[in-house]
């Protein structure tokens, strides 16, 4: 069974409890971010921050209002970041979390580019920077583990409003739809149900997800499908190509030799 979190943005009050408790649980350093007009600090997750609460003003029923969205790794079911990592430093665990292991990381940052949600960040200031992203409080045998101990993530634990709910993905997905069908305020879309082939963190909201610049043009299939569709040819190309090239090599060589010999013969005959 795979663990998941349902984020109901209609309940979020932007209190940032999730954000600070994540920092504290994970022993992340605090920084002093740039001024941000929306007062989202930091304005994006960064090399020291797994999760941040985005603040946006938007309009609803003809009046301005505020909405908030906690942002962190979505823990894709088939993560593009993991598929992109050529050293297996990022891996999807059967429990659900997509976790990063700095010991294997080469620092190529392809995962940063690969993630359709722009989640992985880098602690640029270090001499040997690490990739930084929410680990879903999963740190088997480590000091920051909660999931492994059967606890809910630190952020979920800290949320006062029930905006964050931890559980099994299929159950939470059902609940998400139940809420959507019960209350008319919701947008009829569970963000993460299908995006990039599905994610472990699911969002529901009463404003369009574009409000928070959530990408809505992410394909509904795992992104890795595209590279797999391509990579699956590799063995064939290498074996077939190898054979073909060898054959060509010897064939053309032979042909040239024959041609030369012919020339010679021709000379002799002449």
């Amino acid at each position: 069974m795979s663990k998941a979190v349902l984020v109901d943005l209609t309940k979020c009050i932007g209190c940032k409890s999730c954000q600070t408790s994540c920092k504290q649980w994970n022993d992340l350093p605090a920084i002093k971010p740039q001024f941000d007009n929306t007062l989202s600090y930091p304005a994006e997750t960064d090399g020291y921050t797994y999760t941040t609460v985005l603040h946006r003003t938007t309009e609803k029923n003809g009046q301005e209002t505020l909405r908030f969205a906690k942002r962190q790794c979505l823990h894709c079911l088939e993560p593009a970041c993991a598929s992109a990592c050529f050293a297996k430093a990022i891996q999807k665990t059967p429990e659900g979390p997509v976790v990063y292991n700095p010991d294997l990381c080469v620092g190529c940052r392809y995962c940063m580019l690969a993630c359709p949600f722009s989640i992985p960040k880098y602690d640029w200031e270090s001499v040997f920077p690490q990739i930084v992203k929410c680990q879903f409080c999963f740190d088997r045998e480590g000091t920051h583990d909660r999931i492994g101990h059967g606890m809910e993530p630190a952020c979920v634990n800290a949320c006062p409003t029930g905006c964050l709910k931890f559980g099994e993905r299929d159950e939470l997905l059902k609940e998400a739809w139940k809420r959507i069908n019960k209350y008319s305020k919701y947008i009829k879309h569970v963000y993460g149900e299908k995006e990039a082939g599905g994610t472990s963190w699911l969002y529901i909201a009463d404003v369009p997800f574009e409000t928070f610049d959530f990408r809505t043009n992410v394909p509904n299939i795992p992104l890795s499908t595209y590279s797999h569709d391509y990579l699956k040819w590799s063995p064939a190309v290498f074996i077939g190509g190898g054979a073909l090239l060898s054959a060509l090599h010897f064939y053309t060589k032979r042909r040239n030799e024959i041609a030369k010999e012919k020339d010679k013969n021709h000379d002799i005959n002449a």
Partner: protein
Amino acid sequence: MAAQKWSFKITPLRIILMLLAALAAVIAVYRLATGLSTVSNLNDNWPWGLWIGLDVLTGVALAGGGYSASLIIHILHVEKFKPLSRSAALTSLIGYLLVVAALFLEIGRWYNFWVPFVSWGYHSTLFEVFMCISLYTLVQIMEFSEILTERVLTFLHKPIVKIMPVLLILGTLLPFGHQASLGGLYLLQVGRLHPLWWTPLLPWLFLMSSFFVGPAMITIESSLSGRAFNHHIDKQILRSFIRISGYVMIAYLAIKIIDLIRLGVFGYIFEGSLESNMFLLEMIIGVIIPIIICFSPLSATKKGLITFGVFTTAGVVLNRMNVVFTGMYKALGSGYFPAWTEWAVSAGLIAGGILLYLFIVENFNILEYDKKYQTA
């Protein structure tokens, strides 16, 4: 020949190149010791910048001249092109060495560079690129050691000549893999990379363009070295050589057009945006004009050949830069412009490459060998 002395002419241009290379070396050491943020403007929005775009993606494509030549000369045994083989192989080798150097600077945890050899992330396109480039560089070094061992470590010469066919086949095959895979890296950018560039066929387009840029590079290079070392290649040979490129370009153009139509994004070409203009520029300079030159009497002239070379090469550079920068600009924002140190390293690497080329050409049997075939 064994008694020949090492020689390296010092000219003002070479001094400049050396200074550039030395500066790059200093910056490189500094970067390795202090991290990336001290020398680059890379950031969370733009994790990949100039070094990947120019030094790696473009570098590999341009260094690809080696493999198209190798395919044509060694595998298909089109003997008339033999005069090109050694200089093509050298450029290619140097190109790859630069790519490897750039990659080493690029990775944040460089002491872990070996990890992928043991921890195989085989589902990653980058894994294929990495493995291929590593193997290929190795193969190239071995291939090239045929030439080296003519002068140094001569006892190895015989065994190397023996295994040459295997090396040659490998050396042709591997680039197919990573040239395509470099394009494959951007498959994951679906929805982010502008649709004028993103297509599931991206790897194959990269492969084709890296193939047709090979002969173009060789024309440029031979005309340069022709001037410098009096190493003139018969125009006719070059002309039929670039013809091969020409056919591939026609195929490339056709595929690209059909693909754009198939994906329903043809309209973007003429929308007048930065992306569409850059795309048009890339296609006109890099594909359409070269095709025209190639299949017209122009290609019989020296000027025509050089123009073909320059345009095609520029087109491919533009294409790679468009994929890395122009096409991603909308998705990633405008938060990146390379730092002077990044430019300096890129320039220094190229300078170093040129110096290495010059040194090798002056001291090893590269052009002579080619000449021999030319006169044969």
